[in-house]
């Protein structure tokens, strides 16, 4: 960072890296250099090959061609273990690979040591002790005895981050580490990363959130079609970077932040999400897109799940079209036009590829089967039609409606999931973290799709990223301690809204502190 220091030591250098999956060329000769004590942002649209690069560097797959130099020595890792031994620590993109179900949080925090070369004898006590040390590195506070399976994606992601930080690596790779974190946790992660950087660690950081990159990156490298197409030094010109990424410039998502006067479509009255939380009201007008932000675990998902009938309110009531609405489960909700896209699309929406119905067509059709095929007999043309329509309407990059979802990149998977719920008339659409792992281009497509489909229905989006909320929503609410707060004023500027949201957060924190006294 300081200009006076001598040229930094090169920690990793990658040249001509190539990798193909069948007909897909994920990497087509990528070159990249990361110096010690530097944070390099790797940018690229969905499917650009970022994760493939990460997987090669971390030893979980091997390259078809190309060389990797680590601290000047040529390496080629046959397994993640070798990469770890050589000092490369990685946080992978997929949160479902962050840890093992059936083991406790403590065991998952120490997983690298268990799987690597930690002490041979373990006991619950020694594991807890070590886990507490690892968790402390990123100020993570999770109950150490909880089973990993009970954790939410964000918590899983934090565990993976803690593990990577704890391994004394010379190269740290983070593949979308903040995709399900809220700004508070992200900020905490950044301060850890800055500390690591100061100690001379080379960091490769991948994210679709330009805000993140602006906050910590020293340099940005743009990957496109498996090749590095541009590189930007600090201060990074993000609009140019995005143009390099997706081949077009993005207009700032502009929509009038007007207060809607359309009739109220759904409302929540005097609701308490959990006993003892502050009751709140919420009105959703027809045609409105409302976003809820808030920190991890503040209850955003819980509100959405309650509206969808998966959980119960501690107190309060819902109305839909003026009539009381109490769902007993997804089937009833879907019948009544209340749709939900749950967070973590693999766990909540997608099927493994060998299953019939794991194709794009089958995925879109799944909730609509009873309506589309009342006699029970499947007609695949009907499904394909809906899928083809969605593919062209949302610009899904796929060979056709029969592609299975595992062949698509994250952004395209998310588009398919959205398409599923746009394939039938809807009253209330609930989206939980719909932009997770979605590149800016695809996000713009998704936002356009969400906003265009809003005629007679309302959309409620839970997102932990304020920036996303601003782009998509007419109105932003903040959730804090299982209660909703209205953001003051209307967003004249981004800074103003974020400021107002944050002030609410601090106020709420104050309330909570008093609460605890």
């Amino acid at each position, binding site marked *: 960072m300081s200009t006076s220091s001598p040229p930094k030591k090169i920690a990793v250098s990658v040249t001509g890296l190539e990798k193909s999956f069948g*007909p897909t060329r994920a990497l087509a000769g990528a070159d990249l250099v990361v110096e010690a004590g530097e944070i390099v942002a790797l940018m690229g649209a969905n499917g650009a090959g970022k994760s493939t690069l990460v997987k090669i560097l971390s030893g979980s797959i091997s390259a078809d061609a190309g060389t990797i130099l680590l601290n000047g020595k040529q390496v080629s890792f046959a397994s993640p273990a070798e990469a770890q031994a050589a000092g490369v620590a990685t946080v992978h993109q997929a949160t479902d690979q962050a840890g093992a179900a059936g083991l406790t949080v403590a065991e998952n925090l120490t997983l690298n040591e268990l799987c690597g070369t930690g002490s041979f004898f373990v006991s619950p006590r020694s594991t807890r002790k070590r886990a507490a040390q690892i968790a402390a590195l990123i100020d993570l506070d999770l109950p150490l005895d909880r089973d990993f399976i009970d954790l939410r994606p964000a918590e899983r992601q934090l565990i993976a981050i803690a593990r990577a930080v704890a391994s004394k690596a010379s190269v740290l790779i983070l593949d979308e580490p903040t995709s399900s974190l809220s700004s508070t946790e992200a900020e905490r992660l950044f301060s850890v990363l800055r500390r690591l950087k100061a100690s001379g660690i080379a960091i490769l950081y991948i994210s679709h959130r330009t805000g993140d990159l602006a906050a910590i990156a020293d340099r940005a490298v743009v990957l496109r079609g498996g090749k590095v197409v541009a590189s930007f030094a600090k201060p990074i010109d993000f609009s140019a970077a995005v143009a390099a990424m997706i081949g077009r410039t993005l207009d700032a998502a502009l929509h009038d932040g007007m207060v809607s006067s359309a009739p109220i479509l759904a409302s929540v009255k005097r609701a308490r999400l959990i006993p003892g939380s502050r009751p709140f009201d919420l009105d959703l007008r027809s045609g409105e897109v409302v976003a809820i932000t808030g920190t991890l675990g503040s209850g955003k998902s819980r509100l959405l799940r309650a509206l969808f009938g998966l959980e119960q309110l501690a107190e309060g009531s819902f109305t839909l079209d003026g009539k009381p609405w109490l769902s007993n489960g997804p089937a009833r909700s879907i019948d009544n036009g209340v749709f939900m896209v749950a967070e973590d699309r693999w766990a909540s*929406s997608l099927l493994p590829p060998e*299953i019939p119905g794991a194709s794009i067509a089958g995925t879109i059709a799944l909730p609509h089967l*009873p309506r589309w095929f009342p006699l*029970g*007999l*499947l007609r695949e043309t009907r499904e394909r039609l809906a899928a083809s329509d969605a593919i062209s309407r949302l610009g899904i990059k796929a060979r*056709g409606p029969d592609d299975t979802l595992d062949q698509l990149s994250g952004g395209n998977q998310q588009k398919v999931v959205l398409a599923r719920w746009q394939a039938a008339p809807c009253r209330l659409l609930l989206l939980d973290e719909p932009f997770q792992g979605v590149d800016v281009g695809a996000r713009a497509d998704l936002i356009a799709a969400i906003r265009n489909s809003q005629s007679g229905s309302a959309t409620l989006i839970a997102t932990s990223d304020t920036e996303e909320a601003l782009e998509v929503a007419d109105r932003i609410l903040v959730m804090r301690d299982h209660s909703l707060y209205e953001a003051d004023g209307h967003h004249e500027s981004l800074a103003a809204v974020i400021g107002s949201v944050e002030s609410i957060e601090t106020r709420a924190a104050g309330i909570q502190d008093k609460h605890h006294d």
Partner: protein
Amino acid sequence: MTDQATASSSKPASTFAETARKYALFVLLGLMLVGFWSAQPAFINSANLFSILQAVSVVAILGVGVSITMSAGGFDLSVGSVAASSVMAASYAMVVLQLNAFETLGLVLLMGAFIGLVNGLLIVRVGVPDLLATLSTMFLLAGLQLIPTGGRSITAGMMLPNGTTAAGAYDPAFLILGRGRLFDTVPYPVIVMGIVALLAWFLMERTRWGRVFYAIGGNETAAHLAGAPTKAYRLWAYVLSGTLASLGGLIVASRVGRGDVSAGNSLLLDAVAASLIGFAVLDKRRPHVLGTVLGAIFVGVLLNGLTMLNAPYYTQDFVKGVVLVGALALTFGLGKKKR
């Protein structure tokens, strides 16, 4: 991204390895048929081919039930003992209760469905893991089936535990199910197997219900969030499996004409083997009806041929194992990368 789009527009021709995997079992089956035929011409006459089909019909029917529960993410270990209990129940109904063929059929199928329901309720309502619940039912039935007769086999004129003699007998109409032949050629059990296979195939591959069964097996949460009543489906899978198992038992009963004390363990293992071999058929890597039936036939042909060639009984299991391993290695080993 762009190159992906271009690359993807031309769907790649399936490689040789893929084709080989897909049809490996068919080829093996063909080779076996030809091999046995050349070694023993009597092997290929239609009577013998039908006896092979007849021999595998019960295992295939049970296997279909197993594969339905497997596709819904479960596993029914109780099919063997449901079938065995059905043999006892059918005999009891006719010999002791003096019911006729149709009443017996109805009663036993109901019993099978009921046991399936109990399995399903244990799993879905009480939350017992599938393997555990059906294993318990298996043990329970193995004992329960013997209680009404105090452990005796059921035959016409048998002595009952209370000292009287049973007055009924097997209804001749009942025996037709297992012993009769359509046009004096096709044994009825083969026809029943064909109908069951066809219906089950249709259900699982061509209707939305089948789709949902598979969706539940693939990702229950996803299916639930997509509005499928997953518990009801899983319950139904077990009811179907129980009913099919009791149908298998009925066929056995009508073939053997008495209620015999037998554990049904080998039926279970053979049915499971059939559905597992089915994974490899057409390279589906999942339970499916067609594969299960083919898996059963595969094993049936092998055993029939070996018997014809007078292979000692102890080589038959061995050969069965070797061929299984071979078929599997071929199917799974041909260079498909792990998922």
